[in-house]
């Protein structure tokens, strides 16, 4: 693994949100362990899919990598620079190389700014271009994402969801980043539009050699776009491997259940499939279960699962699993 083509390495990343009580004197009574010690890497030019149910810490992971949330502990090494150790101007320079596409294209665009200003803002902020040059670049960007360059003077409300997401993509591309976090980029869109955005993301990756961290809850989407997939549960990674391997040979009981729960649009296949139905809900990240945090819902639970936390270990080449059974 330790070849030189690793673009991003995350080591034991933690992000806790404190819970406090009291109005005047804030007492610290606990933590929401949103991300609880995860490690992974992303190679240059590949797409790593991060899947999990809502509230498992996927989005927080993405934001902590970009230093939009200061991680509680751990290291994020991007292009040889530890982002957790730098700040100020140095970090600002690094931010040019990593961008984010947000989930909700209705909430992530400022309704009072024109499209030209939205897409041009990163260029302006980082002093990359000004005036005519900036405008030219914005037009170019709109064309790249499949929008008419004349849209430059329009406002976000004049666009449909899919078009807005394209604006979000154009903004992320403005500074020629090498790494983009796509945080549920298609889940707010209609079925027929989803494919358009997925194809766009794939085209852009081929054209500009981008590296993606794709955060999504839909396993079939993640499997379609990603080269490798990491499965997250309650702030921890439970399994990660190549996307073909994950489908053919899932090791962790949670991955198996997740795979079996995804419906397949084919009645003949559906008839034959056996579902693993998980009991209950995801426990609260404030007070996760002792031992393995999946032990409350696992169908293959053993005594050791209640006592010891399983180690996240490599079981075969590039296949990591955190389970006592494996």
């Amino acid at each position: 693994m330790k070849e030189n083509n690793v673009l991003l390495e995350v080591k034991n990343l933690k992000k806790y949100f404190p819970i406090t009580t009291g109005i005047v004197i804030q007492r610290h009574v606990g933590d929401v362990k949103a991300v609880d010690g995860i490690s992974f890497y992303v190679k240059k030019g590949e797409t790593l899919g991060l899947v999990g149910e809502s509230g498992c810490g996927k989005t927080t992971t993405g934001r902590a990598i970009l230093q939009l949330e200061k991680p509680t502990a751990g290291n994020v090494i991007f292009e040889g620079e530890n982002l957790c150790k730098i700040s100020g101007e140095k970090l600002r320079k690094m931010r040019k190389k990593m961008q984010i596409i947000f989930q909700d294209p209705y909430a992530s665009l400022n309704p009072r700014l024109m499209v030209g200003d939205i897409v041009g803002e990163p260029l302006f902020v980082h002093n990359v271009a000004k005036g005519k040059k900036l405008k030219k670049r914005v037009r170019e960007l709109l064309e790249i994402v499949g929008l008419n360059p004349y849209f430059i003077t329009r406002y976000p409300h004049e666009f449909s969801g899919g078009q807005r997401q394209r604006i979000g993509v154009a903004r992320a591309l403005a500074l020629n980043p090498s790494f983009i976090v796509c945080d549920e980029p298609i889940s707010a869109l209609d079925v027929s539009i989803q494919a358009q955005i997925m194809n766009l993301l794939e085209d852009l990756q081929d054209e500009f050699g981008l590296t993606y961290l794709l955060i999504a809850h839909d396993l079939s989407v993640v499997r379609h776009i990603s080269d490798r997939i990491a499965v997250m549960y309650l702030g921890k990674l439970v399994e990660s491997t190549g996307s073909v391997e994950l489908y053919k040979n899932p090791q962790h009981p949670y991955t198996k259940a997740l795979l079996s729960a995804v419906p397949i649009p084919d009645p003949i296949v559906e008839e034959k499939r056996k579902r693993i139905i998980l009991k209950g809900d995801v426990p609260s990240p404030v007070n996760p279960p002792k031992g393995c945090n999946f032990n409350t819902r696992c169908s293959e639970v053993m005594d050791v699962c209640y006592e010891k936390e399983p180690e996240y270990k490599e079981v075969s080449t590039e296949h990591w699993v955190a389970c006592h059974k494996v």
Partner: protein
Amino acid sequence: MEPLLDVKNLTTRFYTPDGTVFAVNGVDFYVNKGETLGIVGESGCGKTVSVLSTMRLIPTPPGKIVSGEVLFEGKDLMKINKDKIRKIRGKKIAMIFQDPMTSLNPVLTINKQISEVLQLHMKMTMKKAKNKVIELLDMVGIPEAADRISDYPHQFSGGMRQRAMIAMALACNPQLIIADEPTTALDVTIQAQVIDIIKKLRDELGTAIIWITHDLGIIAGLADRVNVMYAGYIVETASCKDVYGNPKHPYTLGLLSSVPRLDEIHKKRLTSIKGLPPDLIDMPECCPFAPRCSYRIDKCFKKNPKLRTVGPDHKIACWIDIETATKKEVA
């Protein structure tokens, strides 16, 4: 056999300041006893409005059911008076809504909300109703139901709330349940739980279901027949196997090839449907899908096709035969 619910030529419009919204344009559908009908389509295609119209739950104004006949047990639900339809809603036809948080009353306990249905429709006493509520919650798989019935909705998790909604819908043993995207707000593992429960109860109680969703995957494992809707029209209706295995309408075909499948072996590029769904305010006179269709011919822009039979229990609203037609690039 006479269908349980037979909807004919249903048209619903909304009169808004921006213009008339042609939400549902003369749709016909039926549900047999014990059958599951799936209605698929993108947002704004009229799925929800068409079933809300059959229950006369459209807010008027701005909405108006312009025409249509809804036959249920030999009566036209469009013609009976308000008191009578209230006796059918919740008792004979029940609904499960998309978002369990907004469809449960936050200031009433779960017991109060479910027993209300029983007291009203089944004339049960409070005590009897309470026992029935416990039984119902038990049936939908809420652990320690007897202790949980005095909880408020916020004390339930998303999956449990949806189960409570299902329990409420089942309270009076309805003949038909209308489920409007009941699992969209839930996580996949919870979605699997909820679908599992509904399937089990359907097979046990023999209830007919209309299941509305945008997720083609859910319908595949659940429905007997499927209606595909687009821009307020039913564009294809067939048995579940035919819709997935032998789709005849270009829209259905496009929809199926634009979703990634979990079991795909070779990664291939998705074929997306170009363009956007039409604005329902200025609806074209022609086939609503024509501007996005890659099989279109000149006729498509002149006249809107009516549903025609292409196979046993298989109808499409399209001028062309997909096997013989040539595919063109749409700009």
